[in-house]
């Protein structure tokens, strides 16, 4: 017990972060706020920013806009920001382009960042492109990895081409600031250090009027039904899938379409138009999860083109394991509940 409290004492020495005076430069991250919290992509961007800052010898700043968002600065410090600006104003409660744009362009004209990171969210993309054109920087969108060209202090960003067949690496060698939008899930979120704290600067602003007004909900529109052959994510069941309900839940969790092999059809789980088979539908999704499918030639030939294949089957000799990227020799009924939980 005595050790624990001594440790507590040591750990409780809080790290108070303070910015260097006479700022300018630095790597700035514009935060996305989702459901009153800092979005995961913002934390990932902060992680990327910290790595770049280390190599550049620069500071990392976060800026969060919204209404009632002052407390969110704590998360940004914990994720590694050296400084945080908070713009708390009723006109910014919901994302609107012109008010956010004005606030940020005024801020960045004053602060002159070297690099500005946004999350590659719909709002982040709109803002980044418009801001880059306004204040004169180059923009790389959907960045999945970044490296530094230290001699010119230039960030080299890689982004996916044709949906990820390969990655193009580009950089903005001269114009500043350099803008990047960070692809969600591409960078790892940093460790949130609870003892890292700081005092954000609250900014007074006059946001201006939005130019686009919401009229109301629009009726008569349905999300697109993508044919199975073009579905980007597919969860397919086979005879060994066990509980088909779990398969459906997995599909729902991943936003995937449900399919199966002929065994699933015979079991009455899927319709004839959902059979993945050279005699049925040939698919080429980004992700294919085969649950309890043994994987005969006719099935495998119809999904080999999937970019990433996960297979779960109890038989180690199942042919599906010859085509899958991740092979789980296990009973689906054992793995699926844990998988559903892990995906929470």
């Amino acid at each position, binding site marked *: 017990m005595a050790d624990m409290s001594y440790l507590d004492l040591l750990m409780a020495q809080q790290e108070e972060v303070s910015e260097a005076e006479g700022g300018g430069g630095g790597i700035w991250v514009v935060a996305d706020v989702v459901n009153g919290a800092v979005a995961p992509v913002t934390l990932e961007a902060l992680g990327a920013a910290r790595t770049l800052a280390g190599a550049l010898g620069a500071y990392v700043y976060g800026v969060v806009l919204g209404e009632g968002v002052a407390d969110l600065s704590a998360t940004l410090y914990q994720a590694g920001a050296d400084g945080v600006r908070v713009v708390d104003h009723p006109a910014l409660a919901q994302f609107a382009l012109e008010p956010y744009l004005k606030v940020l362009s005024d801020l960045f004209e004053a602060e002159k960042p070297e690099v500005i990171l946004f999350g590659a969210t719909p709002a982040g993309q709109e803002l980044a492109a418009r801001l880059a054109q306004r204040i004169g920087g180059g923009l790389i969108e959907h960045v999945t990895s970044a490296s530094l060209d230290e001699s010119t202090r230039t960030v080299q960003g890689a982004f996916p081409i044709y949906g990820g067949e390969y990655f193009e690496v580009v950089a903005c060698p001269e114009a500043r600031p350099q803008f990047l939008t960070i692809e969600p899930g591409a960078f790892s979120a940093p460790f949130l250090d609870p003892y890292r704290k700081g005092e954000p600067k609250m900014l007074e602003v006059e946001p201006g009027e939005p130019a686009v007004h919401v009229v109301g909900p629009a009726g008569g529109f349905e999300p697109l039904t993508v044919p199975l052959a073009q579905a980007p994510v597919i969860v397919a069941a086979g005879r060994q899938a066990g509980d088909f309900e779990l398969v459906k839940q997995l599909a729902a969790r991943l936003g995937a379409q449900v399919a199966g092999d002929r065994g699933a059809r015979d079991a009455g789980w899927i319709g004839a138009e959902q059979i993945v088979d050279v005699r049925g539908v040939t698919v080429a999704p980004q992700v294919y999860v085969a649950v309890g499918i043994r994987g005969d*030639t006719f099935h495998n030939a119809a999904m080999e083109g999937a970019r990433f294949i996960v297979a779960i089957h109890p038989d180690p000799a199942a042919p599906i394991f010859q085509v899958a990227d991740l092979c789980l020799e296990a009973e689906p009924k054992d793995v699926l509940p844990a998988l559903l939980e892990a995906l929470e």
Partner: protein
Amino acid sequence: MDFTFSPEHVALRRMIREFAETEIAPIAAEFDREHKVPHDVLRKLGQIGLLGVCFPQEYGGMGAGEAGYCILMEELGRVCTSTATNVGAHIGIGAMAIHLDGSEEQKRKYLVPLARGEKMAAFGLTESNAGSDAANIRTRAVREGDSWILDGGKVYITNGGYAQIITVMAVTDPALGARGGVTAFIVETDWPGFKVAREEDKMGIRGTSTAELVFEELRVPHENVLGKVGEGFVTFMRSLDMGRLTLGAAGLGGAQAALEWSVRWAKTRKQFGAELALKQSVQWMIANLATEIEALRSMVYRVAWMVDNHQPFAQLAAMCKMYGSEVASRAIDVALQIHGGLGYTRDFPIERAFRDARIAEIFEGTNEIQRIVIATNIFRDYGVRIRA
């Protein structure tokens, strides 16, 4: 010699290919399975002007020439022989007769709606006694005042069950026979006396209407005589020559599809630890097939050029039809062999294409007749008459 397609034909092919792959290929099996004509597809083709592809723009057509028409037939033949056959009968013989020999009024009245796809055409020549022996037709047309009364019937008329305008050959003077005794008439199928007696239940091209027609005191106004009275034989020979070439183009498309399926399957299918594509026997089948296709392609488009440049082409058109139909049959046979058991099942399009391909050696002039045409022309060039 310039072997490139002109920019408008490249653009045309690209457009038709996209149409064929988006609007036709996904549902082609349905037409065969349900034995129904793809009216929706024909309507869409008409809306963008493709049902008048080779006719002049002043008559509602596209003005893309015979080359454009061959491109259309090739791209349609590549995805659905039934659709290609419907279109070929409409443009290549039905409307073509009016384009070749129609008066200005007839073109305005009939060719324009046909070119725009507002109405569909067919060509009524064949009878139960007169297939290859076309001159043996019996349908009679008798003058009565300012009209003609037609009596008789036709068999195996493609599009016959739904076309609104049919170019019908009838005997106007039995004594003169083919030379001077046959006349072409433009018949509107909603006139009294015109009847569709039955539809044939066929081995293949089940997405087409192949009808038996009956004419009972069918009154046709004199202004609907196509060309001159007694010169119908010339009209239909010229129409058939034009249609023949494009049948070769449709065969080219079908053979191309068979090649693509074969290559794709040979890449995918593994036996004895390796893809079929690595087996020399398969490689040779595909090499032979590809060579024949290239030869056919060169021939078809060279003859299309000759047509568009007003050079004599009848003999070469016969060669295109003959060779094209036989290459298509050989191609789908190879494709079936490469696909093995799977190709024999209805899950794959191979068996449908196999059934569809066979008719090309028979209709539009059997290949035997084509060979006679070719031989006759060759010997005539050397001064020998081999035909009575």
